[in-house]
């Protein structure tokens, strides 16, 4: 079956093609085409994984392009890492497909949605199966395209259109770095194949400076795709897409591709200490900053988006501190529980009629039991509570940060872990406990700038767009499931995925649990030279638990118990709060520093082009024509003038003959 691994991406591709050409006749049944495709992929993936556990790496390639003596090949490869990734991707994608059946069913373009999902799954699986880094890049871009299409799925909303563009462009910046890195790498090693690249690195064929440059350029790609600081700005905006998409692409799979990239290129990074340091610090900074912003967001999806960024920062941090397995392990567990959280959020949003502001929610615990319980499991997992998945992976990350010897990184990781627990439970308590605040459709915060902080008075400019607009394609909710109905649990299409993911969030951690002998680690590092993997001691596990518990307790005290006023911190430090609400003003800074000057330069050049470059051309044309016209002035049609001119001309000739040749004399 491992020889047939190419089938895994092909099934979604077939689903995509069917939906592309016949989707409009299938309507809602399109969902089943997609689900069937992914289901088959999942089955094959499982078989491949089991075969791979006991077997060898399998590679199959064909010639893709030839130039000169060089040949680039394309094909597929099954290594331990991508066998694991295959499972993660197909599984999450499958449950998202199932979930969307219900979530999207009142959208007229559901077949388009499913075709995009199919294309995305194809691309993501192709990315995972790539035997060389160029093929990875190709699919890397394709997932970016799918992300663009899906974020902009509701393209008639200007915010969605803008967000789609922003997502594509921002990641594109990273991708260009990645492309350059690959090109330089190719020129150094003559190949895009992982094996040959690593061999060249080990044999010292690339000098250190160049190696660092290559590693950093490749890391740029990861920064863009995995929404690391400073290119993270696109991910929160990408939440304009449908929630299942956020779960699949912007939490579990695509954004993790950056981490995966660093993972597959790990020997290259290990060879450059500078690059490793940059990676570690980028991860740490991202984890911290994103977590601080997650503290104050009020849009349920944006909280989760910042949380995703923060967790990706954790993974990058782990990779940067030599925790190869830790980072990839967290990638896997995070995929499960973050997908769970997003789908849970989707379930909530669907139940409260497509509203996303947590100030409009509350008291949903009793109304949607399954969602609430699974969401709680997800929150506990991400907070790192024993024995859920997040606990094991986060503990390993902390261990690798600690053992790396940089106290600063460890401290940041701890603080971030605390904040993670806090903001997740803030979200949980605000959403599921207390009173339901969204009963009346008259938006209680209509004139509120959309920020929680009652203490911070001047937040009018905060852009936290709440989206209550009714989509053009969407049948108004009142007509399908009753707009004024109280929120209630959704059907099995939505709860089944939650249950699956919740169980995974519980058990996934055990695959690399110390007391079971680090099974995943043994699997992932076979045949790879990625150094010894750091493992924490027992006290670290307790410390991690304590931090998580502290965060949860604080959130409990503030948002459930009310022992501390909700605006306690906001009122104490309004400046900081305002800064956080406005996302450190990074968007504004980028616009001011990059976008505006570029456009201004473009304008300037355009003016220059019209006035100078084209001006010279037109000037030449005009002066030629002007000269002609001034000469033609003499051609006044007067025969006598013509005669006069010719006589005078003849006389001039005679005069010249006189003067020069001395004729007649």
């Amino acid at each position, binding site marked *: 079956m491992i020889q047939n691994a190419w089938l895994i991406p092909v099934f979604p591709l077939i689903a995509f093609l069917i939906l592309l050409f016949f989707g409009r006749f299938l309507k809602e049944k399109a969902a089943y085409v997609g689900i069937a495709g992914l289901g088959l992929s999942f089955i094959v993936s499982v078989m491949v994984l089991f075969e791979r556990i006991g077997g060898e790496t399998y590679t199959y390639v064909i010639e893709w392009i030839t130039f000169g003596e060089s040949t680039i090949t394309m094909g597929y490869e099954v290594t331990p890492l991508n066998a694991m990734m295959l499972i993660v991707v197909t599984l999450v994608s499958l449950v998202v497909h199932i979930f969307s059946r219900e979530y999207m069913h009142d959208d007229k373009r559901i077949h388009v949605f499913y075709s995009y999902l199919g294309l995305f799954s194809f691309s993501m699986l192709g990315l995972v199966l790539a035997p060389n880094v160029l093929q990875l890049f190709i699919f890397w871009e394709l997932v970016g395209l799918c992300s663009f299409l899906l974020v902009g799925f509701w393209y008639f909303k200007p915010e969605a259109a803008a967000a789609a563009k922003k997502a594509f462009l921002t990641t594109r910046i990273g991708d260009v770095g990645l492309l350059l890195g690959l090109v330089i790498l190719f020129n150094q090693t003559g190949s895009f194949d992982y094996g040959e690249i690593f061999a060249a690195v080990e044999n010292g064929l690339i000098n250190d400076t160049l190696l660092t440059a290559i590693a950093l350029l490749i890391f740029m790609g990861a920064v863009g795709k995995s929404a690391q600081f400073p290119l993270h700005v696109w991910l929160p905006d990408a939440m304009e897409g449908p929630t299942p998409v956020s779960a699949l692409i912007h939490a579990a799979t695509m954004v993790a591709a950056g981490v995966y990239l660093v993972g597959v290129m790990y020997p290259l990074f290990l060879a450059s200490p500078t690059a490793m340091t940059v990676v570690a610090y980028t991860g740490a900074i991202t984890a911290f900053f994103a977590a601080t912003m997650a503290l104050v967001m009020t849009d349920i999806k944006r909280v989760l988006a910042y949380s995703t960024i923060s967790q990706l920062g954790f993974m990058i941090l782990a990779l940067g501190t030599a925790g190869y397995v830790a980072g990839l392990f967290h990638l896997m567990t995070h995929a499960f529980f973050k997908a769970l959280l997003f789908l849970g959020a989707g379930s909530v949003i669907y139940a409260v009629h497509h509203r996303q502001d947590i100030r409009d929610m509350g008291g949903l615990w009793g109304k949607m039991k399954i969602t609430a319980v699974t969401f709680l499991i997800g929150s506990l997992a991400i907070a790192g509570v024993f024995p859920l998945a997040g606990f094991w992976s986060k503990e390993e990350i902390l261990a690798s940060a600690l053992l790396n010897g940089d106290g600063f990184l460890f401290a940041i990781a701890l603080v971030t872990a605390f904040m993670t627990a806090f903001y997740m439970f803030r979200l949980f308590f605000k959403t599921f406990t207390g009173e339901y605040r969204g009963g009346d459709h008259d938006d209680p915060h209509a004139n509120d700038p959309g920020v929680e902080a009652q203490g911070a008075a001047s937040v009018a400019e905060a852009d936290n767009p709440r989206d209550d607009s009714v989509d053009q394609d969407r049948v108004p909710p009142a007509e399908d499931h009753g707009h004024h109905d109280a929120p209630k649990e959704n059907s099995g299409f939505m709860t089944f995925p939650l249950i699956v993911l919740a169980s995974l969030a519980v058990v996934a951690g055990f695959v690399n649990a110390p007391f079971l002998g680090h099974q995943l680690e043994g699997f992932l590092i076979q045949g790879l030279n990625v150094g010894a993997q750091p493992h924490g001691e027992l006290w670290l596990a307790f410390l991690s638990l304590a931090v998580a518990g502290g965060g949860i307790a604080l959130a409990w005290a503030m948002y459930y118990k009310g022992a501390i006023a909700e605006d306690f911190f906001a009122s104490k430090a309004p400046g900081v709060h305002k800064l956080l609400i406005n996302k450190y003003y990074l968007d504004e800074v980028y616009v001011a520093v990059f976008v505006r000057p570029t456009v201004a330069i473009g304008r300037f050049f355009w003016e220059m082009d019209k006035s100078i470059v084209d001006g010279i051309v037109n000037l030449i044309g005009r002066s030629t024509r002007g000269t002609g016209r001034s000469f*033609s002035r003499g*051609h*006044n*049609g*007067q*025969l*006598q003038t*013509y*005669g*006069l001119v010719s*006589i005078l001309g003849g006389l001039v000739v005679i005069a010249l003959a006189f003067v020069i040749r001395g004729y007649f004399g």
Partner: protein
Amino acid sequence: MVPISLFLSLAAILFCIGLYGVLTRRHLVIVLASIELMLNSVNINLVAFSAIGPFANISGQVFTLFVITVAAAEAAVGLAILIALYRNRNSIDVIKHDLLRW
């Protein structure tokens, strides 16, 4: 015996008067008349050379005949054109006929 140079000078004077007329007169009839004058001065030259030139022979007189023939034809056609022109554009002022303009 009149020296040939005097005949030639006379021809030159008549030619230049004719030329001046062609270049400056506005009445089309006069322009045509000036052209006839110029042709005449050429004839004087031809006849003068034929009679008292260095290689005097009969050819000059024969050519004079041809020139006269051409002049007659030219005068006939020219005046016909002039009349047609006058009928169509109602003027025989040279200045008003500038269709050759760019």
